[in-house]
């Protein structure tokens, strides 16, 4: 490894990474710190303005810095101050999560995943053995079946209901998790099928299809605009209803139905995201040597066996980082949902709408009701969750890279 010696090494390093550090410090780390501080105050539409004489406010609030002081907003109303108790916003958000019935409900839901976790652990233990007591697919199937049985026995829908009633936070978070869980498998399935299709060597018009199928990726750079088009398809006087109309069926206002609105944002997101999966999988497919397939054919393997025993395991290394990356970006999905449904259809005042994912919820709370303090707490909780997920995924992708 090159090592430039000399006492000015650190100055050189600083010169190289200084601008990047500065940018990240100002535009990434400062907002995080600022949000953390605000999350402990009662800043909202009634107390929007800072009181610069309070020590920490004077440090964090840019309009308080002596250089910019003349541009500080002078508003009516008392300035915001620290909450009493200081974690009041967090209590407000998490509501009565830490009460016996809600905790019990959460525990019940956790119990349903226990069989799956045990199954995966057992599979991992027997990973490289030939004469295993039970095949891995069978193990997972049994685990999932027991999970479903538990859902029935423990009355999970009721437990979910209990948690949902304990605050908006859980409603939007749960909904976002459902959204991610609906989107990612679809991305993968659509991406995989199309990649397999494009990988057929003598498919007529292969180049054309390859180019055409990548169009949504290009369009996703102007996602907000294409989302308006998707919205138009499902409007009352939109394309779908027009096509239905000529068949003599009277369509409905699709986006007013909570379930359909949710499916529409899933569909639009699939449209944007499958090309990324398709291109990655296609690249990985082409790097699998054909000798493996030929050997399998000699042994009499059929298409499905080849797919499940050769293709899918060899795709794992390429696909897992993509899945993790997409999960995190899907969790933070904002623009598409905002343009198509705006978080609606409404389910009554004061409750989040049917497609209000976490970011849409946060945006609405900040820009429509100016709940800065509460949303600071919300951001921090989300950040901790996503931070943990990112660190875990880094570990995961490193493990798979080594296993390859």
């Amino acid at each position: 490894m090159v090592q430039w010696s000399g006492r000015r090494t650190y100055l050189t390093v600083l010169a190289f990474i200084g601008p990047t550090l500065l940018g990240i410090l100002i535009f990434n780390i400062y907002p995080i710190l600022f949000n953390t501080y605000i999350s402990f105050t009662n800043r909202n539409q009634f107390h929007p303005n800072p009181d610069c004489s309070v020590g920490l406010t004077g440090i964090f609030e840019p309009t308080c810095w002596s250089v910019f002081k003349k541009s500080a907003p002078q508003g009516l109303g008392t300035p915001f101050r620290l909450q009493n108790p200081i974690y009041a916003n967090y209590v407000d958000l998490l509501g009565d999560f830490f009460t016996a019935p809600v905790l019990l409900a959460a525990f019940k839901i956790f119990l349903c995943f226990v069989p799956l976790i045990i199954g995966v652990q057992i599979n991992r233990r027997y990973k490289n053995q030939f004469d295993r007591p039970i095949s891995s697919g069978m193990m997972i199937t049994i685990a999932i079946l027991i999970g479903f049985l538990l859902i029935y026995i423990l009355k999970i829908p009721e437990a979910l209901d209990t948690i949902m009633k304990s605050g908006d936070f859980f409603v939007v978070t749960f909904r976002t998790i459902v959204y991610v869980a609906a989107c990612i498998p679809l991305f993968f399935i659509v991406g995989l099928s199309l990649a397999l299709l494009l990988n057929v060597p003598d498919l007529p018009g292969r180049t054309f299809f390859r180019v055409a199928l990548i169009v949504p990726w290009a369009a996703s750079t102007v996602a907000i605009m294409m989302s308006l088009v998707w919205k138009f398809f499902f409007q009352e006087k939109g394309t779908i209803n027009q096509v239905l109309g000529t068949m003599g069926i009277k369509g409905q206002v699709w986006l007013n139905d909570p379930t359909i609105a949710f499916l529409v944002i899933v569909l639009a997101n699939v449209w944007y995201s499958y090309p990324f999966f398709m291109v990655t999988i296609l690249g990985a497919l082409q790097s699998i040597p054909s000798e493996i397939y030929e050997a399998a054919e000699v042994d009499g393997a059929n298409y499905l066996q080849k797919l499940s025993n050769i293709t899918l395991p060899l795709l794992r290394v390429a696909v897992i980082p993509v899945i993790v990356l997409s999960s995190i970006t899907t969790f933070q999905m904002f623009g598409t949902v905002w343009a198509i449904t705006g978080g609606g259809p409404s389910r009554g005042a004061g409750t989040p709408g049917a497609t209000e994912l976490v970011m849409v919820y946060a945006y609405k709370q900040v820009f429509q009701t100016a709940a800065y303090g509460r949303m600071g707490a919300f951001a921090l909780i989300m950040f901790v969750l996503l931070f943990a997920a990112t660190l875990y995924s880094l570990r995961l992708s490193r493990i798979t890279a080594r296993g390859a």
Partner: protein
Amino acid sequence: MNRKTKPTVRIIQVILAILATFFAVYPVWFVLLASGRAGQRLLTLNLLGTFIPTEWSFENYQVMLFQQPFLDWIRNSFFVAIMTTISCLLIATSAAFAFSRMRFYGRESGLVLFLAIQSFPGVLSLVPIAQLLSAIGLYKNLWGLIMAYVAGTLIFTTMNLKGYFDTIPIDLEEAAMIDGCGPVQSFFLIALPLARPAIAITALFAFMAGWGEYVLASVLIPAPDTAVTAMVGLYKMANQLSVPWGYFAAGAVMIIIPILIVFLYLQRYLEGGLTLGGVKG
């Protein structure tokens, strides 16, 4: 592998491919059709018109170009995207080089921290950023927006370029070092020219990030009408009480088509460009 595919299987394959292509291309095709239709409607009276061009006029394009502030929007967007790309490359290449080639305290943990920081919900850092920019007088200013974009794409570009620098053999630089070449020379004369493909892909992504972004732009430059970027302008247009759909479609086409052409032209590099760096661990 050399078996002949059965005709039925082949037919199913082709039908699937055609269906998928329809799904992929139709929304863009729909906008293209609507942009050529006179009158402010997306709906056509005959069903055929929703699928193939039955009428075509350039009226919407003319109105968009000459009677609306569309050219201003495009100029703003273009300026922002170009400046974002240039500043981002200037800043990120040097940092990526340092992270790839130099050993210093906190290198590994710094990289992990960068990635983790990115998971902070962007929507919620809008308010602090807007406040900061208004304090230094760059609120409602394209330069403020550019600064925010550069910072936003910095982590991704640094990671991507670092991954590529890692794949360049170090022997060249070692040879140069023996001849007395310092880090700065080594960066400009050896590493940068070798990293050209990765820089091209990174530039493409930075440009697209600046060209198509909406949320930051709508918050940092909300008004006046001639100062906004194309995304914000068109989105506003589509949220009026009676939407001028024809104008909107024409504007959308003029924004999407250039991106589409560049993208499809560069698509064979995409796969390579993305897996060049980053995810190799």
